[in-house]
């Protein structure tokens, strides 16, 4: 792969949108090319900066009932009928003034670093579901999953069997947190997918209570030299319960 092609693909790579084989080619090129490595770092920085600071508008509280009302109307009528949704201009000015910009409440994480970490973990989680890249290794045996990570990273994170508690081990994959490859261990519970990121707490130990971020529940703690970060669409109570199960079973 030459620099031109590498540059063309860098952002897709940073976005986690590349097929594994091409990604490996690109990584091999970037490893040996200072200019492309700098470009990759820059692309990551821009993506993260945008990612962390993106403003979000929330739907005004009364919009849901308005939508339900137009849908009810729609039901009783012929398919081809188009409702005339009129725009009360006078109201608009008032509504605008009152409504303003409601930037989504950002979480109360203790530091920017932690916030970045959490945002990245949520991103990894939602992305793992979207791009069908949930699992690099599929196995319900915790020893197999652990051995797979050891082969990839040189260390095996604690992988626990939670089947008795109703959480089925699905497998694992390598993901990125704070610009490092970290193991993501995946459990399933009913229709829910749980991503458990586990990595050595050598640089920084994390610890934060269960909280909700962009519709996902998450919590983080450290134990015996490893950081644990859970992201899932479980309720906050269930996330706490999951944390208890994992804590109990790790040494």
């Amino acid at each position, binding site marked *: 792969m030459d620099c031109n092609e590498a540059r063309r693909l860098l952002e897709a790579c940073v976005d986690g949108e590349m097929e594994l084989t091409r990604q490996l080619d690109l990584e091999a090129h970037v490893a040996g090319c200072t200019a492309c490595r700098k470009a990759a770092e820059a692309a990551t920085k821009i993506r993260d900066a945008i990612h962390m600071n993106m403003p979000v508008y929330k739907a005004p509280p009364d919009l849901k009932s308005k939508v339900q009302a137009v849908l009810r109307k729609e*039901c009783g009528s012929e398919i081809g009928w188009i409702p005339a949704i009129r725009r009360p201009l006078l109201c608009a000015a008032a509504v605008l003034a009152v409504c303003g910009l409601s930037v989504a409440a950002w979480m109360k994480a203790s530091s920017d670093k932690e916030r970045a970490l959490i945002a990245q973990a949520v991103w990894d989680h939602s992305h793992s579901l979207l791009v069908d890249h949930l699992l690099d290794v599929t196995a319900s045996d915790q020893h197999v999953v652990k051995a797979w990570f050891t082969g990839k990273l040189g260390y095996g994170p604690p992988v626990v069997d939670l089947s008795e508690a109703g959480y089925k081990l699905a497998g694992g994959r390598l993901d990125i947190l704070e610009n490092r490859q970290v193991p993501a261990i995946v459990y399933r519970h009913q229709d829910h997918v749980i991503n458990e990121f586990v990595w050595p707490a050598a640089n920084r130990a994390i610890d934060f209570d269960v909280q909700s971020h962009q519709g996902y529940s998450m919590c983080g703690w450290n134990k015996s030299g490893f950081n644990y970060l859970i992201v899932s669409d479980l309720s906050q109570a269930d996330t706490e319960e999951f944390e208890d199960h994992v804590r109990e079973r790790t040494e």
Partner: protein
Amino acid sequence: MRQRRPDKLTADDRRCFEELFLPHLDAAYNLARWITRRDQDARDVVQNAYVNAFKGFRGFSGGAKSRAWFLTIVRNAAYDWIKKHAPEEKLIPYEEEKHGDIISINDFNDELASEERREQLKRALERLPLELREVIILYELERLTYKELAVALGVPIGTVMSRLSRARRRLQEGAEYGT
């Protein structure tokens, strides 16, 4: 799927539809708001989009792609709205920039408080031309994949990549100098 009368959607359909798509209300409003830039317009677009999606509900095959399918409808409703009410916003084609340049490494200013950083980004985002604004919103906020973006925008994946890249570069420049 269960049998339905040929030309009417029933109250059951509506309940089923609402269960599937009302959870995406915030996403729909956010997208419509960023495309139209105004609260009242976004509300109208969202209501139109729900009606359109409801009518097309029968053509919807279900599954995990409901969000992307629905957001595509929201986006189309927003474009219809623009055509009708704000034709001056109509897509001005932007010159394709050449690719492969090194992106400047100047980052967003780290010293700035994050509130301020977000405010800068918001202003830069508002100034983006529509075709770049929508791609960054759909990708960053609505989490569509490249492939879903290509379908939603009706363009090849290569165009998705180059628009996303241009959008980011402009946001970066905007947040650095243009506030």
